[in-house]
């Protein structure tokens, strides 16, 4: 399936881009993140991240659909 990925903060720095479209057989965020970590060299452990799909927070077993926009969120530091 096609997924649109957006990256923020240190993940964007490591990926070297703010967004990309990828093709993957992963059907959940839990399966997808290791693929991206390998591809970009992310060293941030999954238990430090939250995940959002199409602008809403979801759990790691959320069933992904074709063309979903997916964001892995590192710990936030606003305020």
């Amino acid at each position, binding site marked *: 399936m096609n997924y649109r990925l957006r990256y923020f*903060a*240190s993940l*964007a720095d490591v990926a070297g881009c703010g967004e990309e479209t990828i093709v993957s057989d992963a059907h959940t965020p839990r399966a997808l993140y290791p693929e991206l970590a390998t591809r970009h060299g992310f060293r941030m452990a999954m238990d430090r991240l939250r995940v959002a799909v199409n602008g809403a927070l979801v759990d790691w077993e959320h069933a992904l659909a074709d063309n979903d926009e997916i964001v892995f969120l590192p710990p936030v530091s606003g305020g």
Partner: protein
Amino acid sequence: MMRFRLSDIAIDGAAERRALAADAAGACVVFEGWVRDHNDGRSVQRLDYQAYAELANNEGERIIAEAISKFEVTDARCIHRIGNLVIGDIAIWVGVAAAHRGSAFDACRWIVDEVKLRVPIWKNEHYADGDSGWLHPDGKAVAEY
């Protein structure tokens, strides 16, 4: 509702405060987070905030709505800066109006805490020694990504 928003220009606290005015309100508590010249023992020169805007707006509005239902307040607003900030700039502005001061203080503090915890905004600090880095404050080392 637009009681939470991101701003890429300087926050006008006086205008935000006027938007809270109500005849039934007897107390107004405002929190401003200012960019300060040090953090964790390091000298800070400037910083950038980046947000995942769609989710930040949704989560921010949710926090304000929760505060209004949780505390006895008449209104609440929050504005968070994005982009490049220098020492002294307002990074976040939270204002709450209420009939009585206790709930205004409680709600304002709660909103600040929740925004810092939940809203997808990240801070990149630029230090006097030329170093910089995104802060991911969950008790793990900053550089560990």
